[in-house]
């Protein structure tokens, strides 16, 4: 990984290697100075004392605040995804329907909920739940908000996945006399689902991160909010936030690796549909607006369709 030719530069020769070494040393020194300055600042503000960090060695802190918070976060994320997947599948298939009266409403729903911030959806869901059910439920607000948004995003993933199945499959299905719905459920979906899997897993990262929005205005006690209570009890805001950030990073990196693993596995698989798994999934909707599904190698798979009507690849 250290020496390679890229589009920007060749494999370094002796002179370039010397120059790289010099830059490395200077950059390394700057980084070390930055770290030192940060540590000195933290020490000056009494943030590095044992007293501030010891609460993380206490079982009570974990069992009272952090683990229940983490559980609430994972619960909301899992329930949201389980509901959002079928919703997304329905909307995604709806957008590909032959009938305009199915296609248009599905398209409008997807576009509407994709353009609105999740917090706004959660606030609305909170009040809606109170109005309909009569009790306030932050959990329901978080789940409904996440389902509305991620259902719409997953609809686009489903749509792209189905469009990515080679056209010959549809033609063959038509030739043997399958109806449109039979073609979708028996031929296209089974092939699409495997190619979409990495994109779905990386959408999980977004869901896990977005559960934290529930702690702001609708009062769902997820990891961050629960840890905030712990921080006021132990008077260690900075260490607590660092630990919370670390927990999120570990969960999301693991999900990212899972997505990359699935993507690699799909790419090396023999047989099945020949679809190109691209690094950045840019999806164009009817308005010409584009959305990146995922951006980097941890979980960066979206499927690239092979040119069909209603969809223009980037």
């Amino acid at each position: 990984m250290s020496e390679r030719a890229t589009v920007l530069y060749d494999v370094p020769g002796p002179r370039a290697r010397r120059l790289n070494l010099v830059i490395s040393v200077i950059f390394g020194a700057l980084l070390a100075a930055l770290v030192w300055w940060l540590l000195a600042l933290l020490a000056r503000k009494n943030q590095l004392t044992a007293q501030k960090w010891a609460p993380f060695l206490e079982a009570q802190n974990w069992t009272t605040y952090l683990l229940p918070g983490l559980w609430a976060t994972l619960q909301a994320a899992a329930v949201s995804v389980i509901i959002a997947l079928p919703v997304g599948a329905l909307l995604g298939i709806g957008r590909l329907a032959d009938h305009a009266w199915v296609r248009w409403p599905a398209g409008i729903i997807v576009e509407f909920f994709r353009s609105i911030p999740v917090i706004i959806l959660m606030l609305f869901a909170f009040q809606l739940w109170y109005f309909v059910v009569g009790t306030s439920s932050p959990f329901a607000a978080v789940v409904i908000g996440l389902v509305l948004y991620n259902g719409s995003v997953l609809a686009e993933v489903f749509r792209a996945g189905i469009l990515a199945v080679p056209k010959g499959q549809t033609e063959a299905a038509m030739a043997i006399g399958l109806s449109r719905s039979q073609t979708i459920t028996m031929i296209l979906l089974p092939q699409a689902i495997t190619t979409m899997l990495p994109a779905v897993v990386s959408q999980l990262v977004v869901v896990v991160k977005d559960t934290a929005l529930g702690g702001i205005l609708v009062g769902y006690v997820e990891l961050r909010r629960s840890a905030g209570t712990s921080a006021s009890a132990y008077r260690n805001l900075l260490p607590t936030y660092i630990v919370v950030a670390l927990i999120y990073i570990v969960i999301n990196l693991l999900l990212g690796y899972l997505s990359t693993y699935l993507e690699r596995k799909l790419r090396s698989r023999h047989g099945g549909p020949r679809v190109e798994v691209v690094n950045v999934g840019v999806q164009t909707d009817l308005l010409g607006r584009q959305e990146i599904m995922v951006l980097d190698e941890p979980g960066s798979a979206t499927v690239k369709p092979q040119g069909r009507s209603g969809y223009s690849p980037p």
Partner: protein
Amino acid sequence: MNFSFLSDPQYDILGAFWMTVQLTFFSAIGAFVLGVVLAAMRVSPVPLMRGFGAGVVNIVRNIPLTVIIIMMSQVIANQLGVRLASPGPGLSTQAALDLGNFRLAVVGFVIYTSTFVCEAIRSGINTVPAGQAEAARAIGLTFSQVLRIVVLPQAIRAVVAPLGSVLIALTKNTTVASAIGVSEAALLMNTLIENEADKFTAVFLVIAAGFIVLTLPTGLVFGALAKKASVKR
């Protein structure tokens, strides 16, 4: 449906959306600059810089924006005493607090969004086939010529659409600033829903319309730009 709150002077709906626009504008500029720097590091020939860039991106991107924004206020400002605005002549204590929170939110958005800008740019550069640069070097172009004439013109085209999506995502993400009391659209909606609970559907539709008005043109403009710039390979 009752939209009477629209004419109630106690709710400054336009002002709240103006705050959303301001947050988006300043964060977008900052995130673009920082994103370019991060991308330059990630594609540089120096392994240490590449590692640092990758580390920053993978750490920041995996932290919820909510955690970053609240950290800016509670940890950076309150615990470490970093003040981005201080009261003085012409700036009352409350105004300084508001301005400080606004700036903290912008810094948080810049840090978070720059990682997405970085990845968009990096993947744009990666869409240029290595053979292009090899051919350019083979005919004797220098590094800056390769970059200027061959690589960047192709990379920029591939970057326009993803950057548009990042901008739209940023516009929606500015609602997280409500967590530290910046009076933007989401915080206003919270107040409205508390005071006018019976009209919550109307409130939702108005705020939703506001965001659609903000994000739709962005999408259309970037979509048109991307279409115009797209290169057939």
